[in-house]
């Protein structure tokens, strides 16, 4: 059985290294992109089973990338976990970023530093 492909989109190399190590040691294949442009390239090339997405990134935010994905028929169903340090999990309000009701909120929001057990549990649930 081929491994599930997880794409990590984050401009912080240490976060990428950490999440990749966690994913790989839990039986996933991790890919990473440090900006939105290369993230989009990866999505088209590998069609990931799930995307871990940071919000604050240079040039273009994770939210704008998420909107782009939602507007593409072939990518809109890829589950997305937002992994960000900008706000506490319970206070994350997707509608304060995206007013357009036709864009569904991401499947999950996790606050940095992430709790690894919950992170893996969420990945398992969303990729099965």
């Amino acid at each position, binding site marked *: 059985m081929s491994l599930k492909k997880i794409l990590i989109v984050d401009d*912080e*190399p*240490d976060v990428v290294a*950490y999440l990749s*190590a966690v994913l790989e040691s839990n039986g996933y294949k991790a890919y990473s992109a440090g900006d939105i442009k290369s993230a989009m390239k990866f999505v088209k090339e590998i069609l990931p089973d799930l995307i871990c997405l940071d919000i*604050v990134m*240079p040039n273009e935010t994770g939210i704008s990338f998420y909107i782009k994905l939602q507007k593409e028929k072939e990518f809109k169903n890829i589950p997305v976990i937002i992994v960000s340090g900008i706000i506490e999990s319970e206070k994350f309000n997707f509608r304060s970023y995206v007013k357009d009701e036709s864009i569904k909120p991401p499947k999950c929001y996790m606050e*940095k530093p992430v709790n690894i057990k919950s992170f893996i549990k969420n990945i398992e649930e969303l990729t099965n």
Partner: protein
Amino acid sequence: MTGSFNNKNLWKQEYQTLFDRVPCYLTVINKDFRIVRANDAFHENFGDALNQHCYAIYKRRKTKCLNCPAVKTFKDGKVHRSHQQGIGKHDQKIYYVVTTSALIKGANNINYVIEISSDITPMKKLEEKVIETKRLGAVGQTVAGLAHSIKNILMGLEGGKYIVSLGLKKNNKEMINQGWEMLERNFDKTTSLVKDFLSFSKGRIPDLEMSNPVDLILEIVDLYKDVAAQSGIELIPQFDDKIKPLPFDKAGIHTCLTNLVSNAIDACLMSEQKGTKVLIKVYEKRNRLIIEVHDNGSGIDYEIKKKIFTTFFTTKGGGGTGLGLLTTRKIVEEHGGKITVDSQKGKGATFKMEFLRERLMALYKESKKN
């Protein structure tokens, strides 16, 4: 009504009502600065005042107020105005704009001056509230930015710890090294963040000494020339030989320049174009010392440009603390100068620090006195 104006008594009554009920404090003072007449509005807010010195009543002072417009009116007979702050009869602060005028227009000898004071306390309070709200907003934003940076560092530390322990479990030396480097890097980031934050929060007075800005520019070029050369970036100093020394805080301006030059190098690294360069230019124009740091790197888009000097903000992921330009602006302003940026996405950027020579000299004289 027309008929009433011919009636002296009515006219007098109308004048009295106007004097008492006009929404200003009115007082007439003599040459000794004693109040000889005051309207009801004045009595209501400042209490009984007849025959007392206006400064004693308005401000509870024993001597005339600084910047007193009445002194000027007694002297030249002209209308004068000033902003003042007084104390009401219930010890409340009263802010007012006072206009003074000779009671009898065109008189050779001015014996009486009328003081007309408009109460601007509600406006002043509103202004104070706006400033306080802005201040709290800025504090909130700074704290949120700080929390964001700390969370990223924590994530790096957790990551390092995780990879080291995974490496130990698998007996994988490469992994242990990778995790250890992550730990080291994130400890260093904690140090830089704390250092930058402290230097930003310090309300320090610049330590001014007469120096030549050209020497400082050459020092910075020397500091960065290897880093720039390794990345294929040309670092060019450009200066006017005739610049005379002037007072500035060498350590402070050094910090500003290292922030600007390292940002410029980062912008060149982020750019896809070849032949990138950073130009550090120092010159004098209309009695202003101008230091410019120009690069032809990735440039800054409009949304980001709006907040770079005011918000705890970074586009460099884990590479920046988000405090560099905030600190730079603070140091420049401590020198009485200003910093501006001119940039377009993809077309490089020019950061310009401007210092008025006169202002620097005045600050220098003041610092010597202290």
